[in-house]
């Protein structure tokens, strides 16, 4: 999987940063404008998938390996749960918005509305990392036709060594 032609690679080099920034923008201003963690996560997964398609899998895995993606995935859920549990300690109930009760920010400001931006970032990590993970696994497997005509699906690395 060597990637695509020079044109695609050049365009990807320019565009990937903007897609990534757009995902982050959607997430951190999710409580003010349309967007939020789900949209941001899917857009960031899109940027990594574009990178994988244009440059080949090895380049993308060098940036974000599967182990790291799994760590991000799990840490997103953990961050979500930990902040929710902190709500018991500080606010009395699960999922209490304790930051908003103590430090109410200015309305329509970026640092406002307490725990909601933190939840957004947690969802961004979860959705983005898990979708990238699945895509890489889907792109690893491919079908080879053996000598006796039967088809078999193998991981790509195995075939090259044989």
């Amino acid at each position: 999987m060597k990637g695509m032609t020079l044109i695609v690679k050049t365009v990807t080099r320019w565009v990937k940063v903007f897609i990534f920034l757009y995902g982050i923008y959607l997430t951190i201003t999710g409580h003010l404008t349309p967007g939020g963690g789900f949209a941001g996560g899917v857009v960031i997964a899109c940027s990594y998938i574009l990178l994988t398609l244009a440059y080949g899998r090895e380049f993308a895995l060098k940036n974000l390996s599967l182990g790291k993606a799994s760590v991000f995935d799990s840490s997103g859920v953990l961050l979500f749960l930990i902040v929710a549990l902190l709500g018991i300690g500080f606010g009395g109930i699960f999922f209490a918005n304790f930051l908003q009760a103590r430090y109410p920010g200015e309305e329509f400001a970026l640092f406002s509305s307490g725990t909601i931006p933190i939840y957004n970032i947690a969802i961004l990590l979860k959705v983005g990392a898990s979708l990238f993970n699945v895509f890489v696994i889907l792109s690893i497997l491919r079908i080879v036709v053996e000598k006796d005509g039967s088809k078999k699906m193998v991981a790509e690395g195995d075939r090259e060594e044989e």
Partner: protein
Amino acid sequence: MGEEIYLFITLIFIILGALVAVETRSLLSSVISLGAVGFGLSIAFLLLMAPDLAIVQIAVEVILLIFLIRATIGRDVVPTTGHINWISLSIVSLLIVAFLLIGIYSFRSLLEFGTPIISAVGEAPSNSYIENGLSRTGAANIVTSVILDYRAYDTLGEATVLFTAILGALTVLRVRSRRELGGRR
């Protein structure tokens, strides 16, 4: 009519795309028609004043298209020939027509299109979300304040379901590719 006519046109586009996706023979064009349905749905969400959903839908559709094309491309697809079972096909058609009639009958009991239930019922929960959402949670986007503050359990359940689904997909796919995963686990 006014703004509804655009919604109407978009819905008809969606239905045509769905028909093409169901009936065409080649799998690849079927998948691409499904993409057209998804993008039309995104426009419909935009016309229905749901910008959050439009953004999520358009991004999800791109990823779903990539996954489906990945699954179907390069597979030798033998178009399923053989005689059509007319008896079962007619039973299915009768069932679907009956469903359609029941649906049309029961849609009469709904409120007319364009008058949501929050305008008819004064103490619906959405009214309180709209009224107090900004002052209580500080989030100007009421949808975000609903999913991450008022009804955060819903989001927690969603994260669990997504985690389980992705875990299932990885488990189904990774049997022969453990060495590719890095081997350090």
